[in-house]
C-alpha cells in the first residue's frame, strides 16, 4: 500500500468515527428526551425477565430424547441454508449509499477501507442472528435431544458470518484473492461447499450409515460440549474474511457501483414507505410499486428498466378527464407484477364474499325477503352473520381492498381537475375489480349447501355497500390527506356503510336497511370533496 492509499484509509476511518460519534450522541440525546433512559432500562429489565421466565416455562426437558432423525433434519436444514449461498450472486450482499459512493468509492482509497463499515455492520448482524439461533439450539438440544452443546452459539455465529463473506466472494467472482488463478468466486465456492457438506454430514450419516470423521468438523459445536468445536468455524470465518478483504484490495467488482446506486434508491424507497406507513402520508398509490419494479429491472439488467414492459392503450385525448385518470389507475395496476395481481384478485374475492353475505343477511330481513325464499332462510348461515357488525366487517374488508386497488393520488392541486372526476377516475378500476371479485365470490357462496343462489336484493345490497365504502374511502383520504392504506380512512368508510344497519336495527326498522344503504351511497356520491 502506498502512502497515498494509507492516508486515505486513515481519513475514511476518521470520517466514520466522527459521523458515528455525532450520530450516536444525537440519538442518545433524542432517546433521553423522547423516551428517557430510565424508562428504556426499565423496559429492557422486564423484557429480559419475561423472556427468561417464558423460556423456562416453555422449555420442559423431555424424559426421553427425540430420535436422531430430528438432529439429522436440523443438520440438513443448516446444510441447505449454507449451500443456498452457492448459486452465482448477481447482487452484492452489502452496498454503499449514494454519498459514500461519490465521496469515498471514487476517491483513491482501497475499497476494503470504504466498505469496512458496511461489511462490519452486516457481519455483526449475521453474527448476532447466528448466535441467537445457536443459543436456541443449545437450549433445545439439551432439553429434547439430551445433548450438551454449549458452544453452538459462537459456532453458528461464525458460520453465519462466513456465509456472508462467501456470498461476497461469489459476487466478486473474477476479483483476484491470491494470484491470478485463485479468484474470489473460486474461494467463495470452496468455502460454501465445505461448510454445506460438513453441515450435511449428520444427515448423510443417518442415511448412509456413516460419514468421514472430518466432515462434521465445522458443525461439531452443535452436538459436542468441547470448546474446541468452535475452532473450525472460527478458522472458516477467518479464511472467508481474509479472502473477502483481499478481493477488495484495489478495485471494486465491475457492477458494484451501478448496483449500489440502485440498491441505495431501493433502500431509500423502502425507508420512505415505512415512514409513510407510520405517518399515514400518501406517497403515490401504486406508483411506487411500478418504480420499484423499474429499479429491480435496472438492478438485474432486465427489460423494463428503460421503458414499460406492458402498457394499456391510451383513451383518446378528447375523452373526459375521469377516463384519463381511470386509465392512469388501470395502468398502474397493469404494470404491477403478476403475483401482486393474484393477491389483489384474492382480496377482491374475499371482500365480495364478505359483502355478499352481509348484504344477503340484510336483504333477508328487508322487503326483498318477502318476495321469495331465494335469499335464504333468515335462520340460515347468511342470516346468522347479519347485523351492523357484519356490515362493519364487510365495509372494512371492501375499504382495505379498494385501498390496494386505488389509483395514484390526484395530480398536483394546481391542475384543474374537478373532485368528482378525480374520485371516479381513481376508483373505476377498483370498482371493476370488486365487481369481478364479487361475481366469483357469488358463484362460490351460491354453491355452498344451505345458502343457495343469491337473490337480486343481496347483489343490490352489496353494490350499495361496496360503492359507498369505496367512495367514502377515496373522498375522505383525498380531503384529509391520509393515505388510503392507513387504518383511519378505512375505519371511517366501514363505519359510514355500517351506520344504516346499526341505527335502523337499534330503532327497530331493520327492513329499511337496504334503502338506507342506497341513500348513504347517494350522499357519498354527492359530497363534492
Amino acid at each position: 500500500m502506498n502512502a497515498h492509499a494509507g492516508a486515505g484509509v486513515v481519513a475514511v476511518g476518521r470520517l466514520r468515527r466522527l459521523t458515528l460519534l455525532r450520530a450516536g450522541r444525537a440519538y442518545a440525546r433524542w432517546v433521553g428526551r423522547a423516551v428517557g433512559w430510565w424508562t428504556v432500562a426499565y423496559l429492557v429489565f422486564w423484557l429480559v425477565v419475561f423472556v427468561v421466565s417464558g423460556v423456562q416455562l416453555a422449555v420442559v426437558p423431555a424424559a426421553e430424547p427425540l430420535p436422531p432423525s430430528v438432529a439429522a433434519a436440523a443438520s440438513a436444514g443448516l446444510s441447505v441454508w449454507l449451500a443456498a449461498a452457492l448459486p452465482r450472486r448477481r447482487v452484492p450482499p452489502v452496498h454503499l449509499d449514494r454519498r459514500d459512493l461519490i465521496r469515498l468509492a471514487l476517491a483513491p482509497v482501497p475499497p476494503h477501507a470504504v466498505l469496512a463499515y458496511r461489511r462490519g455492520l452486516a457481519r455483526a448482524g449475521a453474527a448476532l442472528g447466528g448466535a441467537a439461533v445457536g443459543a436456541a439450539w443449545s437450549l433445545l438440544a439439551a432439553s429434547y435431544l439430551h445433548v450438551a452443546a454449549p458452544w453452538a452459539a459462537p459456532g453458528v455465529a461464525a458460520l453465519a458470518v462466513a456465509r456472508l463473506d462467501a456470498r461476497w466472494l461469489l459476487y466478486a467472482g473474477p476479483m483476484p484473492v491470491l494470484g491470478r488463478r485463485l479468484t474470489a468466486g473460486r474461494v467463495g465456492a470452496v468455502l460454501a461447499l465445505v461448510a454445506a457438506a460438513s453441515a450435511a454430514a449428520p444427515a448423510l450419516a443417518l442415511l448412509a450409515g456413516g460419514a468421514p470423521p472430518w466432515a462434521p468438523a465445522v458443525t461439531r459445536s452443535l452436538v459436542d460440549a468441547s470448546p474446541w468445536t468452535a475452532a473450525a468455524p472460527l478458522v472458516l470465518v477467518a479464511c472467508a474474511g481474509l479472502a473477502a478483504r483481499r478481493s477488495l484490495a484495489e478495485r471494486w467488482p465491475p457492477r458494484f457501483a451501478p448496483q449500489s446506486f440502485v440498491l441505495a434508491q431501493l433502500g431509500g424507497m423502502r425507508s420512505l414507505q415505512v415512514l409513510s406507513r407510520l405517518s399515514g402520508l400518501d406517497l403515490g398509490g401504486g406508483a411506487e410499486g411500478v418504480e420499484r419494479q423499474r429499479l429491480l429491472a435496472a438492478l438485474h439488467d432486465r427489460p423494463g428498466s428503460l421503458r414499460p414492459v406492458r402498457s394499456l392503450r391510451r383513451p383518446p385525448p378528447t375523452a373526459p378527464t375521469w377516463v384519463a385518470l381511470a386509465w392512469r389507475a388501470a395502468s398502474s395496476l397493469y404494470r404491477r407484477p403478476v403475483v401482486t395481481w393474484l393477491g389483489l384478485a384474492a382480496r377482491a374475492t374475499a371482500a365480495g364474499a364478505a359483502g355478499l353475505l352481509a348484504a344477503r343477511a340484510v336483504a333477508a330481513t328487508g322487503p326483498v325477503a318477502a318476495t321469495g325464499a331465494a335469499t335464504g332462510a333468515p335462520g340460515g348461515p347468511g342470516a346468522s352473520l347479519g347485523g351492523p357488525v357484519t356490515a362493519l366487517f364487510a365495509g372494512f374488508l371492501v375499504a382495505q381492498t379498494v385501498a390496494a386497488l386505488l389509483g395514484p393520488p390526484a395530480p398536483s392541486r394546481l391542475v384543474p381537475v374537478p373532485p368528482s372526476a378525480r374520485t371516479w377516475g381513481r376508483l373505476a378500476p377498483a370498482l371493476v375489480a370488486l365487481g369481478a371479485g364479487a361475481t366469483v365470490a357469488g358463484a362460490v357462496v351460491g354453491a355452498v349447501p344451505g345458502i343457495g343462489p343469491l337473490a337480486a336484493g343481496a347483489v343490490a345490497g352489496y353494490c350499495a355497500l361496496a360503492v359507498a365504502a369505496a367512495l367514502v374511502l377515496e373522498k375522505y383520504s383525498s380531503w384529509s390527506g391520509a393515505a388510503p392504506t392507513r387504518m383511519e380512512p378505512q375505519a371511517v368508510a366501514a363505519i359510514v356503510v355500517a351506520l344504516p344497519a346499526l341505527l335502523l336495527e337499534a330503532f327497530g326498522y331493520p327492513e329499511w336497511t337496504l334503502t338506507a344503504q342506497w341513500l348513504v351511497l347517494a350522499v357519498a356520491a354527492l359530497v363534492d370533496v
Partner: protein
Amino acid sequence: MTALAAFDPEARDAAPILRAAGVSVRLGGVSVIADADLELHAGDLVLLTGPNGAGKSTFLRALVGLVPASGEVEVAGRPPASLTGRAAFAYAPDEPALYEDLTLAEHAYLNAALYRDPEAEARTLDLLRTFGLGGRADEYPGTHSRGMRQKLALSLALGLWRPLTLLDEPFNALDLESQELLADLLRDTTRRGGAVLLTGHQRELAGLLGARVVAVRDGRLEPQPAEGERAAPGRAVGGP
C-alpha cells in the same frame, strides 16, 4: 379555457392576465416576500432575478398558492386556486415534478387530458421532438438526466398554451442549444398572446429573451429599466 386565442395587439390594454397586489409571505416568522405588486398583460415576458435566497421561487409559489401568502392574486381575473383559475396557467417548478411510473408520451397524454385540451398532447410531443427527445418518448423519465427531465417538464408547461406560464429557473441544466431553443419558445408564447413569468440568476437572460427585468431584493420587487432605457424608465411592468 383551452388554448390561447391568437395574438391580439389590443390585449395589452385589456385586463391583466396576472394581477398580484400586496402579496406577502412569511415563513417561520421571517418575512420572505413583503408587499409585492406585479401585473402581467398578454405578450409580457418578465424575468425575476436576484441572488440565491432572495425569494424568487417563493414568490412564484405564492402566486399559484403553493405557499401561504396574504394579498390578492388573480389569474385571468380569477383566483388561482379556483378550477377556472387553475385552467388559466401552467407552472413548472425548479425541480421537475414528474411521475416516475409514466413514460414521456404518457405524461403528454395525461397533461392534455387533465387540462381538457386534446391538441396539447400533440404540441407537447412536438416540443419533445424539438428538444431532441422524440425517440425517447416511450421511456420512463426516471432513467433520464436532469436536463432531459427539465426538457420534459418545460414541454409539458409550454405545450399547454395557457394565458399565463410560470417557469421557475427554466434554463437550469439545459445545454446551450436547448437554452436558445427555449428562449425562442418563450418569445413565441408571448407573440401568441401569452404572458410568461420566469426566474433566473443570469442577468444576460434578459438580453437573450428580450424580457423586462424585475429584481427581487430582500423580499421586495424592484422593476429594472430595460436595456437602453436606463436614462428614461419605460412602463413599469413589475411596479405598483
